[in-house]
């Protein structure tokens, strides 16, 4: 059938051949892979998103096209989404620092106070 598309490539397609209902099956877009991007050597790989792919090699190609097209990039990792294990956001409070564990921070060591006290006592002598 002739269609009136302004695109010569589309004119060459017989669009009437489409079945009435075109629908994808579940899983037809394969699995998802999580993508990690390293901006430059020496920096960490940071999670940037996902791609759909049939295997890891394809996932890397898509990762490069989608997440490595413009920004600086030294390296990329991919792994299947099903390989990721995570905490739940509702347990977020477990990461909070409790007041009784101040000794784990540098700020809890008041060395300057002690030095000043020591110096003051020695000058007085």
């Amino acid at each position: 059938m002739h269609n009136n598309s302004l695109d010569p490539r589309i004119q060459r397609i017989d669009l009437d051949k489409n079945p009435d209902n075109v629908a994808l099956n579940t899983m037809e877009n394969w699995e998802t892979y999580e993508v990690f991007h390293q901006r430059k050597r020496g920096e960490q790989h940071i999670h940037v998103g996902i791609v759909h792919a049939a295997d890891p090699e394809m996932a890397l190609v898509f990762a490069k096209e989608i997440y490595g097209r413009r920004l600086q990039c030294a390296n990329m990792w991919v792994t299947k989404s099903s390989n990721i294990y995570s905490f739940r956001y509702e347990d977020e409070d477990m990461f909070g620092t409790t007041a009784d564990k101040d000794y784990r921070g540098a700020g809890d060591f008041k060395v300057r106070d002690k030095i000043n006290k020591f110096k003051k006592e020695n000058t007085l002598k």
Partner: protein
Amino acid sequence: MYGGGYIFTEPTEKELKEHLDDPVKLQEFEARIDAGEKIEPHDWMPYEYRRQLIRLIEQHAHSEVIGALPEGTWITRAPGFRRKLVLIAKVQDEMGHAQLLYAAAETLGKPREAMINDLLSGKSKYSNVFNYPAKTWADIAVIGFLIDAGAIVNQVANSKGSYGPYCRALERICFEESFHLKQGYDAFIALATGTKAQKEMLQDALNRWWKPIMHFFGPPDKNSVHTQKLMRWKVKMATNDEMRNQFLDTYVPKILELGITIPDPNLKKIESTGLWTFSDPDWDEFRRVINGDGPCNKERLAVRKYAEESNRWVRSALLKPTMKKTLPYA
């Protein structure tokens, strides 16, 4: 490109009754948003928040896919090798944006296949402007400059929304949009400052595109409770009218300074309020086109269907029975 003019639907009474949100969790959720924190995929969220976000992000993704069709029309006939390379790069970017957006929507629980099916069946919408044809090269200049500009106004606002994955996708997208806008502006200026025939071609394209551009941000906001709730939840970051006004404010002077006119004698800015007034851009036409009766609706969907159908054998050949569906994490 290409988000804009989202169609938010009001939930039905029945839906609201079936999906009553836990009031304590709702309060915690709203407190988190008020504090400027982002919502992440596995957080508790109100039923209506999830539903509207899926619709919004999905429509945005579909718009990227369909939006590449009118532009793709001109890849084979772009004037000059540089413009051809630029247009190919832009269209490829748009496909990448669609992938980023589908990924963000998937984190809310709807598989990509289901979203594509809703596009193909007509259940899910995309930006109305792409139901209009790109008749000449000047249409590509108008789309690249002004439709992309509209999309940037919209996306910069949305990137400050509350849903983490959508914001992250938009930040990446907006970064690339700056190139899209600039190349469109460059093509627009080349025609506006060119020969008499080039100027006339540009003016003709703008005349045809002005109405769809005014439609781009969607119909005027009815100040409904529903819109207020979506804005409270930072799903919608600005009203349609606010975004349209911001667009006119920035871009009308850029068009006029090139000696191109805008086909609306009533378009003017009221200095005292800062608001633009304009003729009614025919919202009946907007509704007619979005519901399927535009110049290119049939062709756009038929091309997508053809692509899915004729490439299916590749996808099927690579499918392994061990594959299992996992929704992405972030």
